[in-house]
């Protein structure tokens, strides 16, 4: 099972892209919410975590842990849809209760509120892990990482087992992420709602004067951003097979970094940032050393921000006079 250097490189590209796409999916939700109300939504990563807990709960409740073949495919679709709807609605709820009353308050109040919401979500996840269900190992150790059933096997799809692996799981990541990105792009650039979103982002007051119900537009943005976190959570759980109430912090951090790297507020930027981080990580793991990986990611972020302060694809901020 000797790997040639070219195979090693190709395998790391696959690893990097798969991990990067998951990061990108979460980063999209971050960047959308930022784009429209300039809120760095700290709770986004933790919302993502709750989506994964819901998915595991549903699996446990329906007894689908051992599902395989077509039954597993049905289960995956079911999880994707329910987690997306749940996370979307939960995000709207958070906006309605916590952020909307602060619409005209200084941005710092919003940010601090989001940090508070993040704490609430994390503790909700901790509590959730203690639910006495078999999938949570009886809820004895609430904080312990949970094993997520391997509904999607890691069967290699190309060549022999000795060569580069592109597994069914990698395919799942691509098959969920790419269509979502394309439809999101279509929604924002080609539909009435998208136009309203862009108008609200540009100038909420003017948008309101033009008869746009900005509260509804913002709520829709929260729903879309949240549902992306829901999709991402299921993909993440099926790809890694472990979920934990703390996973939102790291995932959120990676996604936030991706969003900033690509230019916060920019949808293609978030995708580019996510892929870049994924690739940097896997290349650094292979060719440098694992312990330098995080340092390298942030070093790249700093260098890029020095030369392009608004990120790779970010628009130059117009001064609002």
């Amino acid at each position, binding site marked *: 099972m000797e790997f040639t250097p070219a195979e090693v490189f190709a395998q790391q590209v696959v*690893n990097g892209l*798969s991990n990067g796409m998951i990061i990108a999916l979460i980063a999209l939700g971050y960047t959308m919410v930022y784009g429209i109300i300039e809120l760095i939504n700290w709770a986004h990563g933790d919302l993502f975590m709750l989506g994964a807990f819901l998915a595991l709960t549903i699996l446990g409740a329906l007894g689908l842990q051992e599902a395989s073949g077509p039954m597993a495919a049905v289960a995956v679709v079911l999880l994707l849809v329910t987690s997306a709807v749940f996370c979307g609605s939960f995000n709207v709820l958070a906006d309605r209760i916590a952020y909307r009353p602060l619409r005209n308050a200084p941005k710092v109040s919003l940010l601090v509120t989001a940090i508070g919401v993040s704490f609430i979500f994390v503790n909700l996840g901790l509590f959730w892990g203690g639910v006495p269900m078999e999938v949570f190992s009886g809820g004895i150790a609430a*904080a312990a990482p949970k094993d997520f059933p391997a509904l999607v096997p*890691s069967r290699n799809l190309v060549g022999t087992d000795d060569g580069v*692996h592109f597994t069914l799981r990698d395919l799942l990541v691509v098959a969920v992420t790419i269509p979502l990105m394309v439809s999101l792009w279509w929604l924002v650039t080609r539909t009435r709602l998208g136009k309203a979103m862009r108008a609200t982002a540009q100038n909420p007051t003017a948008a309101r004067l033009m008869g746009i119900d900005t509260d509804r537009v913002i709520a829709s943005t929260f729903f879309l951003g949240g549902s992306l976190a829901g999709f991402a959570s299921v993909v993440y759980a099926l790809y890694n*097979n*472990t979920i934990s109430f703390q996973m939102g912090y790291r995932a959120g951090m990676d996604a936030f970094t991706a969003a900033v790297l690509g230019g916060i507020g920019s949808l293609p930027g978030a995708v580019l940032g996510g892929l870049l981080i994924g690739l940097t990580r896997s290349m650094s793991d292979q060719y440098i050393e694992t*312990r330098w*990986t995080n340092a390298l990611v942030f070093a790249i972020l700093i260098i890029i921000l020095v030369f392009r302060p608004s990120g790779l694809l970010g628009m130059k901020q117009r001064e609002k006079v």
Partner: protein
Amino acid sequence: MPFTRPATLAARLSRLIPVALLAASAAHAADQIKIVSSLPRTGSSNAQTTTMVNGIRMAIDEVGGKIDGFEILYEDMDDASPQRGNWDPAVEGQNANKAAKDPLVVGYIGTFNSGAAKIAMPILNRAGCVMVSPANTYPGLTKPGFGEKNEPKVYRPSGKVSYFRVVPTDDLQGSVAAEWAKELGATKVFVLHDRELYGKGIADVFEKRAKEIGMQVAAVEGIDPKAANYRSLVTKIKASGANFVYFGGTTQNNAGQIAKDLRSGGVDAPFMVPDGCFEEAFIEAAGAANLNGKTYVTFGGLPADQLTGKGAEFRERYKAKYGTEPEAYAVYGYEAARVLLDAIDRAETKDRAAILAAVAATRDFSGALGTWSFDDNGDTTNRVMSGQAVIDGKFTFQKVLGR
């Protein structure tokens, strides 16, 4: 007269304070002593530490909750925080300070994690309070020449040894693990660690011993314990051609995820971990299917069902009392409490210095782990270790190591 007013004030005050009650509680405190334990009770170590606390409670109950006429109070302190889901340096510091300041406290049982011991040790040493650890295995805490240059002196600001442990250290476990790996057919090992005191310490010893006995070491890498997955690392392991993977680290630091990614990434080399993963939570986190038949766990002692003599009796009483099988470290919690109670009994006082001297003088103690003594560094002379494999989702005893 100028002095009458304060006098009446004092008289009035004395009426307000329930004097009788104060006197009573003072008299009460005179015949009370307190033992505390500081273990991570929140997070994935919980299953393990619950049985340790049960062991401690059993030891106290067995002496009737009283020793030399002192009533024994016990406080089960948590050194983990929900934010970390793991031991937290800030909380461990608070626990140690609280114990050091409480005049009733005569013994501190803890910690679970070696990193936490580093924080508690100097605080308790300054206060002259004896500390007995049921689980720390990092050699540098007690042994000169195994850790940093200033270890273990830095933990003993008073110059006296006040820290003792009932488990054998990693320099023994790491080298025993390397020898066992060779027996299992390893020729080229890939060594991983979690960059923590315990994990890196044991991985370093493993690496050293592996080279000494003629195995190749493909690489030594510190992982990111919070990473979502280790696919890239697994690709690297695969490319290195290693036929054995060793991880120095704990369940909390993602040992389960590594096992998962090894198997799903197509590496079927055997995987060996130290006793930081010797708990049910590891099998749950990794998924039994990813471990079965290819995963080995070393432990700096014997599993509960291999104990003999007093150890076997302990296991029977434990099962009768709590209705469950004790986890691997339960007997160490029990032993730590027993050796401490034995010393208090011999000291016949609640004076911290006398109790400390009595613990240090423990020789040929006949306990659940056999007959053993504390050496001058505070280490146990007990060196029996064991190796287990995961078979059908259960830890299965394979052999006694290091005898």
